[in-house]
């Protein structure tokens, strides 16, 4: 076989292998292969590898006019909703202490910062003095 035929045969084999896997009708496959080989023949002589590469380039150019991407439905219509975690409250004793401890703390704070504090300190002082036997008599 002459080099042109060898190059065309190699290109034809590659085109056939490729087109077998393309999802188009069988007659269309053969038409595309034939058209591509005819266009390639006008550009020969080329080495076999270059001829195959050029054949594929011509084929991809021809296929670009077809819509080949399949229609796919990977999921139903999106209906977005929320899914938020509810509060877990893993340590209820902390809330218990906060709930009951806070009023006690506030009461103590009020006593410390008010005149009641002075009165309590005075009473404490008198008790100490009485214990030591130094309390004033009235």
């Amino acid at each position: 076989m002459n080099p042109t035929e060898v190059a065309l045969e190699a290109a034809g084999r590659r085109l056939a292998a490729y087109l077998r896997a393309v999802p188009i009708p069988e007659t269309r496959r053969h038409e595309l292969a034939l058209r591509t080989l005819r266009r390639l023949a006008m550009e020969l002589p080329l080495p076999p590898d270059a001829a195959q590469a050029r054949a594929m380039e011509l084929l991809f150019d021809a296929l670009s006019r077809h819509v080949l991407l399949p229609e796919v439905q990977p999921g139903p219509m999106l209906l977005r909703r929320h899914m938020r975690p509810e509060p877990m409250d893993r340590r209820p004793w902390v809330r218990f202490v906060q709930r009951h401890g806070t009023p006690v703390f506030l009461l103590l704070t009020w006593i410390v910062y008010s005149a009641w504090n002075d009165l309590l300190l005075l009473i404490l002082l008198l008790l100490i003095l009485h214990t030591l036997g130094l309390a004033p008599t009235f």
Partner: protein
Amino acid sequence: MSTFASREYLHMPWRRVAARRRWLLLALVVLPALAAAHTMRGLLPHSGTTALEMAIITVYGILFVWISLGFWTALAGFWTLVRGNDRFAVTRPRPDDAPIRPHVRTAILFPICNEDPLRIQAGIRAVWRSLQRVDPNHRFDLHILSDSSDPDRWVQEEIMWRELTSSLEAEGRIFYRRRRINLKRKSGNVADFCRRYGAHYTYMVVFDADSVMTGATLVELVRIMERRRTIGILQTAPACTGRETLIARAQQFANRLYGPMYVAGLHHWFLGDAQFWGHNAIIRVAPFMRHCALPRLPGKPPLGGDIMSHDFVESALMRRAGYSVWLAYELEGSYEEVPPNLLNELKRDRRWCQGNLQHLRLVFTRGIFPGHRALFLNGVMSYGSALLWFALLALSTAEAVVEAVRTPRYFPATKTLFPSWPVWDPWPALILLGATAAILFLPKICALLLALLQGRRRLFGGFFALWGSVLAEVILSTLLAPIRMLFHSKYVFLTLLGRGIGWGTQQRDDHGTPFRDALRFHGGGSLLAMLWGGAMVSINPTFFWWISPLVFSLLLAVPVSMLSSRAEVGQLFRRLRLFCTPEEIQPPQEYQDIEAHLQALSHRRPRFGLPPEAGFIRAVADPQVNLLHRALLRGHRSLHPAIAARRDALVERALANGPHVLSPLEREELLFDPQRIEQLHHRLWQLPEETLRKEWGVQFDG
């Protein structure tokens, strides 16, 4: 608004019955445990007066409670099944049942992560066909929810989905979605589905990658949920089947013989406070979305971060919201597979151990029902008991050593006329041993009796085969128990120390364990047993005979692990009619379909000579796969010049040197880019034939 404003189904009649039963259970486990601890105290040389002996008694008491729980659960299940006519069984219609709405839709979810796509395809096909047999106009949709990080698996899954929809004529009924970011693992995968598509469905059934359910069971689950609108989650009891290795067949046998009794027992004690096992269960979507989203735990893994064992927590949250969680123990037609060998089982246990220990942080959560708090603790004890057993052995060994080396005191400090001889009475020890043996083995006898009473002996290979299988299972589980104890103790210890564990993919095939792997994993335990046994032989030979079963089991760990992982050994036992299960004697139609489909797939010649697992190469080389993959991507996006340049460089590298020079992350990056994957495809087909064959494995006559 209060968290519990929607607890609309709180006052259900079964709650009082459940509470009475659980109080009874508490008495049944605690009182004998106290008696056993008292007996143990009398057994010990110093009657429990030393710190060491007090520790032994305490640990023994806790372990006795633990094994008693299993015992009474088995007996309750035996009683439930023998009596029949359980008024709380969910399959029983009731006068106040709601009407069944014919138009409810149910989603069947297959969350997968780097699993074998061929097996998944066969399983989905079998489930779909089973549904078609029951009702060709069924209202089930199947969703494949992928978290696969392996780019080859990603492409294989897309091909699998396309083949399923075209061969089963199920376009618009079987869906595929791959998450780009794996947030919160499986629970996050399911939550993502709920956020996107949950509003379409009233119910969802969650499967594992290896789960199978018959169409009849799926339809019945929906009917039950329709009749009982207060049920949030309905869990089936999956039957283990589908494996050939010795250890898997033994577990399948144990699951089929003892499992129904234990599940019935769990149902007896918990009723509507049951647990969810993460798969083979149907869930009511709306309350699940409202109440069962999982937060992250504060702190770092392993005890902080994402909640790994999400199923227990989801069932507790569902119950907290007022919906009940039931076990449909009497429903058949639900199947799953067990790990094929001991190492895989231990890998799985490591993940579950970490997940269950996290539940310690949730036990006191406000609003959780006591039944679910008990289930959290039960989950912790599933692995914590191993550490306690290890502690008991260590303490007993210490006691034995101390008593062996210490000189007895014949004359105590108080003056006595006669010496005090250290005399050991074996009878209390034998009574205690007998009681423990009864607790451990009586449930097996009950399960055996149940199988005979129910006329199921033929389904286990016949009368003598059934007895032989029980004996063989006892021997095998006695050999494996110390090995599991050692590993579980290590897992609990490491997890409590804060050493995390990865959630890798499980091996689901029947390849045997190589010697190197077995030695690496079990060598340490065997060495420990050698040292322990050797020390006891020289210091306290009497004690050695008490611990000899444990020592010999650990010494034999390597050969036992290897032999039990072999499918040939499992098949030999099957020829001897040992460990036969109903699913092996009468294979379900679904498993026959799976087997047939896997056979057909194994004979299929791939296009261009490319192996099925070469997903990335197929996406680049195969025009159909390339088109499908690009159709499933979101479409072309404009990229930052640096990213575009990096991707162009990846394309050039792959074309110059072949796909093997790209790392999995680089392949994934290219697979995300429709423009570059198309470009790579076009330029690949322009390469010389020699390069295509050598670097990419593409053959034109393939």
